[in-house]
């Protein structure tokens, strides 16, 4: 029985900084109501969105990831030479080959890092965060750039009012590094593949489809337990949280999960109001903006929970940088 050498990693990991990018094109509910039968009051009531950002026609998932990643890198104080792994969480690239992360690394001047993409839809960022934190602890990487970047607008049927009011574009990123302390908590992840048909794109010529009511029922009944478990695994209670940042799927879903979680001291992220639902980008985008506005104190715990198509979900507690 052979036993290979192990690399030395670190006891823990931490997030050094966040960054984000939103396309400049702001689309309001009134703008959408010009083309589909809907109205501002209905959208705000059902989904909570007032406006969303849509990428330009030539603006790609990689473009947005480069912007968000570049800001996170600048905010972290590290240089490109310090990064040895780049992971992009996305499910909306124009084409699947090549991946986004190798290009993002190249354009940010990060030389020859490990580079792979994660597709766990709206749970992608939390999955990628967990993987990359573990990689640092195991010694597979030292400092990592993790990005959630999505261009949902190129998968949406703009005549379908059940989807075009919800989905939007953007990117958020985090730089991770080693730490003597554990500032990224253990992940709770899982899936419900029996519900694979609830959010899907049938083939290359199809649009994004969502069975809204089923998704609403699943998210509002199953996920608060996952959120609580993530707190327990980190060794804290929901009352200890200063922020609760769920995937920005729908404001009604966010409110329902928050109500059941009972994190009474936590600011609940509601970035969807201005950003729309940006799938894997939504959590890092929301948290980056909250930090930039000074909504949440540095050094305090935030609970992240991503969930979406698959169905897939992943949650962990992180310390706000």
């Amino acid at each position, binding site marked *: 029985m052979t036993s290979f050498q192990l690399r030395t990693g670190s006891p823990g990991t931490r997030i050094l900084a966040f960054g984000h990018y939103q396309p400049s094109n702001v689309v309001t509910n009134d703008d959408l109501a010009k083309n589909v039968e809907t109205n501002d009051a209905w959208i705000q*009531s*059902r989904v909570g969105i007032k406006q969303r950002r849509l990428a330009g026609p030539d603006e790609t998932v990689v473009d947005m990831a480069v912007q968000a990643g570049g800001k996170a890198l600048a905010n972290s104080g590290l240089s490109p030479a310090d990064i040895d792994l780049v992971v992009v969480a996305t499910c909306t690239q124009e084409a699947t080959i090549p991946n986004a992360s190798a290009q993002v690394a190249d354009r940010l001047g990060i030389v020859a890092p490990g580079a792979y993409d994660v597709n766990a839809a709206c749970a992608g960022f939390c999955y990628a965060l967990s993987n990359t934190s573990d990689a640092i602890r195991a010694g597979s990487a030292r400092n990592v750039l993790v990005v959630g970047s999505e261009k949902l607008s190129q998968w949406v049927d703009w005549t379908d009012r059940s989807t075009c009011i919800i989905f939007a574009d953007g990117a958020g990123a985090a730089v991770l590094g080693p730490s003597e302390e554990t500032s990224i908590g253990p992940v709770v992840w899982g899936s419900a593949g029996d519900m694979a048909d609830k959010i899907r794109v049938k083939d290359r010529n199809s649009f994004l489809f969502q069975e809204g*009511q*089923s998704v*609403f*029922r699943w998210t*509002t*009944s199953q996920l608060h337990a996952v959120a609580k478990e993530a707190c327990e695994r980190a060794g804290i209670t929901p009352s200890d949280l200063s922020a609760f940042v769920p995937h920005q799927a729908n404001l*009604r879903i966010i409110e*329902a999960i928050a*109500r059941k979680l009972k994190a009474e001291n936590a600011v609940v992220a509601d970035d969807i109001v201005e950003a729309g639902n940006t799938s894997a980008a939504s959590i890092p985008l929301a948290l980056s903006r909250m930090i930039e506005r000074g909504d949440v104190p540095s050094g305090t715990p935030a609970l992240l929970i991503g969930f979406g198509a698959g169905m897939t979900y992943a949650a962990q507690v992180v310390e706000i940088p």
Partner: protein
Amino acid sequence: MALSDQEILSGLGDIIEEIAGVPAADVTPEKSFVDDLDIDSLSMVEIAVAAQDQFGVEIPDDELKNLKTVKDVVVYVQGKGVSA
């Protein structure tokens, strides 16, 4: 032991107050969810999930859409409830 209609109504009132902010005292049998209580289909899903937790009776989406009044839900839960 089967729940009485009054027990179901009372439980439902608490659920609706928590989810939709409607005072439990206003949740009376003849009230329509949409027209009288201003409760939309998304809140109905949350109410159905909470009712399942509380009464042990599942209300699937295709049945839920037929329950228009508070009494409809009480009758549904009563009908599906298990008695010892």
